[in-house]
């Protein structure tokens, strides 16, 4: 019996590794930024999975439910990683926006976004 945690942890690990591989090997800087987003997604899945509880429900109280509030509270998943991920998504968006703007500047200056054509830092 494979646990749900194992599936999600391996998914996040695979996404992180795929993204890192893209960052290390791609020459097109736009693809590097996309790879960074893939890493971001993998880390977010990892964080949410930490809060997983078996048979857990969304950490939201229902006012008109049949069960008592204490009973609902005992079956909730961990809300703390979810709120961390909420922050991480926003920060990831900001990083991507600034990175793509930098790429626009780079393209305007050098006429290319390929790492192999940027010789400013080589000797």
């Amino acid at each position, binding site marked *: 019996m494979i*646990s*749900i*945690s*194992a599936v999600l*942890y*391996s998914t996040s*690990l695979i996404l*992180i*590794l795929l993204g*890192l*591989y893209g960052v*290390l*090997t791609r020459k097109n800087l736009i693809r590097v930024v996309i790879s960074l987003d893939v890493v971001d997604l993998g880390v977010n899945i990892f964080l949410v999975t*930490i*809060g*997983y*509880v*078996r048979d857990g429900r*969304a*950490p*939201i*109280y*229902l*006012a*008109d439910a049949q069960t008592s*509030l204490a009973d609902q*509270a005992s079956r*909730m*998943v*961990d*809300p*703390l*990683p*979810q*709120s961390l991920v*909420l*922050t991480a*998504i*926003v*920060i990831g*968006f*900001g*990083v991507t*926006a*600034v990175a793509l*703007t*930098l790429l*626009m*500047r780079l393209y*305007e200056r050098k006429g290319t976004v390929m790492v192999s054509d940027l010789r400013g830092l080589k000797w």
Partner: protein
Amino acid sequence: MRKVIGVLLIVSFAFFVFTLVMRDLWVEDPTAVRTLGQAAIEETIPQSGAANTVTAIVVQFRGLDTLGEVTVLFLSALGVALLSGEFAGRGLKEVFRDDGGFILYYGARLVLPIIILVGVYIVAHGHLSPGGGFPGGVLVATAVYAVLMTGVKKELSTRIMAVIEGFAGLAFVALGLLGLLSDRFSFLANILPKGSLGMVFSAGIIPLIYAAVGTKVAAELSTLVTSLTGSDYASADTTAQGGKR
């Protein structure tokens, strides 16, 4: 050669992550909350009155952190505006040159009020259901983006957006300072009446703060996208031609 080195690096990285972090985690599903989140679940209703535990954490227990998050988003928008300022007018002109044709032109205007309504709903119910200021604000900004894709630029005044954004940020800080006036004397203390669980008007200052955050995020991201498309673009041609294709 580069790919071989890349594969070697990520294999070693995978080994480290698996042995150090994940080995103990994924043996079996946990049956109870293992972190500080347990305290958050228990304290949510007595301290904040919100139904959504995640919102209670984000806005109340970690409210100062959210203020910093909003600041980071503001800095990001500022950075994009500064970096793209020099090529304003050229920017993504090639991308946005086409007006998108008849269907996009009128389709964007058709879905615009619906998207904004859904965004406002998500912001207003952030303390009751999944969502809140950040996703709702992004949704409203998406509506602006849909219109921008049709090549019309002049409908959005960056100056007005900056004023809205500034007042939303001030509202956040002012709501936080309100907590200093209470007997609890702490920044972002929830001093307004809690109301009853599950109502829209409940949870004290949480919906108000999320409304401020939603307004700020929407204005910020609209400005961000607008500054990427360039400033003096689409003054004459596309606005007039848009509907005629």
